[in-house]
């Protein structure tokens, strides 16, 4: 197996409010290899968004290690961390954050241009990313000229553009209907199959089921992990019955 893209070990995140210490995450471990999609489930407040933010370098753990493509994020300078965030990590949030005054291709090429890539090359990469998510022909439309599912594809293309190998998605199917939501998952799944590593936070079991592994968080602790069953024997009750 190739080297993991993401490795969290013993990650703890505390928030202090006066004398009160709230543990958003306690001793969480998670390793994601290229080609893998891992879903994280849990009730609100279980720590699943905190886990995603820490994995993407948007939040810093109180204890533990976070490695993205072998780089320990907590030891990086602010500038180096920002570079990892721009170059290695793609984010898809429920709130798409598309810029309404920019076309699809401009929205997707913006992060590359901010990263110092020349305009012409950035736009070529953006068109390729839009092709990959199946909306190449909509490249010159503005967000409000597209359906919710198409806008979500633009957001995913923006997360994929360049050489980013870690894809972090927080409720990416948000307000989409069930068929469109499924297309978004199909796309994430396909991207991971093509070599990216993905982490998907969701409260929908039907969406989490697209992942290779599902982590269950409760009060900041990983309480269980499930993978797909592979044979009829595991569908039988283990305890025996009458």
């Amino acid at each position, binding site marked *: 197996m190739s080297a993991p893209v993401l490795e969290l070990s013993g990650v703890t995140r505390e928030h202090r409010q006066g004398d009160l210490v*709230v*543990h958003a995450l306690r001793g969480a471990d998670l390793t994601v290899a290229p080609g893998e999609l891992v879903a994280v*489930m849990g*009730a609100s*407040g279980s720590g699943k968004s905190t886990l995603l933010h820490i994995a993407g370098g948007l939040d810093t753990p109180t204890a533990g290690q976070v490695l993205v493509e072998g780089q320990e994020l907590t030891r990086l300078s602010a500038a180096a961390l920002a570079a990892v965030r721009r170059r290695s990590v793609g984010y898809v949030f429920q709130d798409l954050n598309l810029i309404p005054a920019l076309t699809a291709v401009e929205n997707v090429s913006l992060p590359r241009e901010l990263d110092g890539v020349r305009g012409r090359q950035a736009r070529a990469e953006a068109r390729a990313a839009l092709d990959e998510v199946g909306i190449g022909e909509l490249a010159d439309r503005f967000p409000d000229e597209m359906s919710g599912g198409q806008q979500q594809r633009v957001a995913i293309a923006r997360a994929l553009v360049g050489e980013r190998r870690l894809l972090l998605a927080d409720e990416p199917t948000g307000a989409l209907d069930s068929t469109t939501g499924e297309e978004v998952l*199909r796309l994430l*799944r396909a991207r991971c199959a093509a070599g990216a590593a993905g982490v998907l936070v969701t409260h*929908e*079991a*039907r969406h*989490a*089921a*697209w*992942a290779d592994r*599902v982590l*269950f968080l*409760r*009060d*900041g*602790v990983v*309480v*269980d*992990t*499930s*993978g*797909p*069953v*592979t044979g*009829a024997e*595991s*569908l*039988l*009750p*283990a*305890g*025996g*019955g*009458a």
Partner: protein
Amino acid sequence: MSIRHGLLALLERGPSHGYQLRAQFDSATGATWPLNVGQVYTTLDRLERDGLVAQDGAPDGSPDGEGRIAYRITDAGRAEVRTWFGSPVGSRAAPRDELAIKLALAVTTPGVDVLAVVQTQRSATMSTLQELTRLKVREAADDLAWSLVLDSLVFRAEAEIRWLDHCEARVARAAARRPTVPPAAATPAPEAAPAGKRGRR
């Protein structure tokens, strides 16, 4: 649904007669699955034969003044109850009712880690859901009829998980209102999650 396990779980709380067991079972499960007393005694006979319960009281098993025989659970019976609470209900082999009954008994049996019971089931159902999704992607992509059948199983499994989420939230809320936990009559399943460390928000 296994009457055996239901009765064993009730006997975990203390020795009982057949009539009492039937009444306790009905009250624990909201009488959604009424037992007749014949079923109860037949099951108790088999449990005794298998060494999971024993007659309580006089060594010769003589009935009390009203002609009733009380039963108590044995160590082997306790182990059987722990195994039952610790294992998920199969999605094919057992009707869904067993899950509702198992949870109803879990919340009323002292010492059972209900959240661990919920999580065991949720993981098992999630595994089934993952497998159904894989089937859909790999094999049913171009077959609308099969794909829709798989969808029906997907939605059913999803509904079960949603209900388990709901149970977990209800149990956590009830636990927060009741600060002291009653003394444990049974040890929780060995794979139980560290429920004791749960924070209170």
